[in-house]
C-alpha cells in the first residue's frame, strides 16, 4: 500500500497536476468571491462586517487541518520508516503557516468593528498565535539542521508538542469566557448558520483547500527535484 505512494510512482501525477488545480482554484475562488462579497446577505447584528468570515474561518479551519496532518504524517514517518511522509509534511507546512497568519490578521480586522479592538489576549486568539509559533519552529528546524535524522526527530517533536494546542484552540470558546462566539457549524448536530451564508463559506473553504493543494504539489515537486539534483552530483 505504502509503495504506491513512492515518489517514483506519483511524480508523473504530482508534476502535471498543478496546472489543473490552479485552473480549478481560480474558477472556485471567482464564484466564491462573488457569493461572499455580493450575493450573500448581511448579518442582522454585524451588518456587512460579517463578510470577513468568508476568509477568516476557512483559513482557520485549513491551518488546523494542515497542522494535524503534519503531525500524523511525521509520527507515521517514524513508525513506518518512510522518508516520503516527512517530505509531504515539509511540503504542507508553508501553506499552513500562511493560512495561520491570514486567520490572525483577518480576525484582527474583524475584531475592530465587532469588538472595538484590533487585538485581545483571549483564549482563542492567543492559542492561534501559539500555533503560528509552532509552524515557524517547524519551518526553521528544516532550515537550520543539515542532518536528515536530526531534522526528522526535532520536527516531529515540535509537531507532537504543538498538536496539544489544537484541541485547546477548538474548545477554547467552550472552556473559557472569550470574545469569540461558540462554533456555528457542527458536523454532528444542526448548524446555527443559515444556508445563504453556509454555501459561500463552503465555497471559499473549497477554494482555500484547492490553493493549499496547489502549493503542496509545487513544493513537493521542488523537494523531489532538489533530491534528484543531489543524485546527479553523485553520478
Amino acid at each position, binding site marked *: 500500500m505504502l509503495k504506491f505512494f513512492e*515518489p*517514483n510512482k506519483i*511524480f*508523473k501525477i504530482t*508534476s*502535471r497536476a498543478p496546472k489543473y488545480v490552479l485552473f480549478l482554484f481560480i474558477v472556485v475562488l471567482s464564484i466564491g*468571491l462573488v457569493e*461572499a*462579497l*455580493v450575493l450573500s446577505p*448581511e448579518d442582522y447584528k454585524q*451588518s*456587512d*462586517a460579517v*463578510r*470577513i468570515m468568508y*476568509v*477568516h474561518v476557512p*483559513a482557520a479551519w485549513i491551518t488546523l487541518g494542515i497542522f494535524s496532518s503534519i503531525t500524523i504524517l511525521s509520527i507515521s514517518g517514524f513508525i513506518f520508516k518512510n522518508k516520503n511522509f516527512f517530505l509531504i509534511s515539509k511540503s504542507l507546512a*508553508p*501553506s499552513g503557516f*500562511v493560512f495561520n*497568519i*491570514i486567520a490572525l*490578521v*483577518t480576525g484582527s*480586522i*474583524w475584531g*475592530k*468593528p465587532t469588538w472595538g479592538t484590533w487585538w485581545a489576549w483571549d483564549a482563542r486568539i492567543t492559542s492561534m498565535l501559539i500555533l503560528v509559533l509552532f509552524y515557524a519552529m517547524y519551518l526553521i528546524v528544516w532550515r537550520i539542521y543539515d542532518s536528515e535524522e536530526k531534522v526528522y526527530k526535532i520536527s516531529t517533536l515540535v509537531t507532537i508538542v504543538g498538536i496539544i494546542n489544537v484541541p485547546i484552540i477548538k474548545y477554547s470558546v467552550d472552556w473559557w469566557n472569550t470574545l469569540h462566539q461558540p462554533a456555528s457549524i457542527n458536523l454532528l448536530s444542526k448548524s446555527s448558520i443559515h444556508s445563504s451564508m453556509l454555501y459561500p463559506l463552503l465555497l471559499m473553504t473549497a477554494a482555500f483547500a484547492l*490553493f493549499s493543494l*496547489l*502549493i503542496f504539489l*509545487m*513544493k513537493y*515537486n*521542488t523537494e*523531489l*527535484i*532538489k533530491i*534528484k*539534483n543531489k*543524485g*546527479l*552530483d553523485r*553520478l
Partner: protein
Amino acid sequence: MINELIFMNGYAGYVLSAFSFTLLSFLGLYLVIKIQFVREQNKFITKFGSLNAEQANSAKSQRINKEILANSTNN
C-alpha cells in the same frame, strides 16, 4: 444598490482589506514557491547538461529524471 455594494454600510474598509490581505498572501506564497521550483528545475537542467553520455543515460533511466526533463521542455 451599487452604493450598498461599494460602501458595505460603512464596513467596506474592513471587508476589502481582509480580502485584499488574503489574496495578496496567496499571490506572495504562490510566487515564492514558483521561484523556488523554477530555480531547482533550472539547476537540474544545467547539471544534466554537464553530464557525459554514459552518466546522462544512467540518469535518464530513472523515471523522475525523465519526467523533470519532459516537464521542463513543456514549460
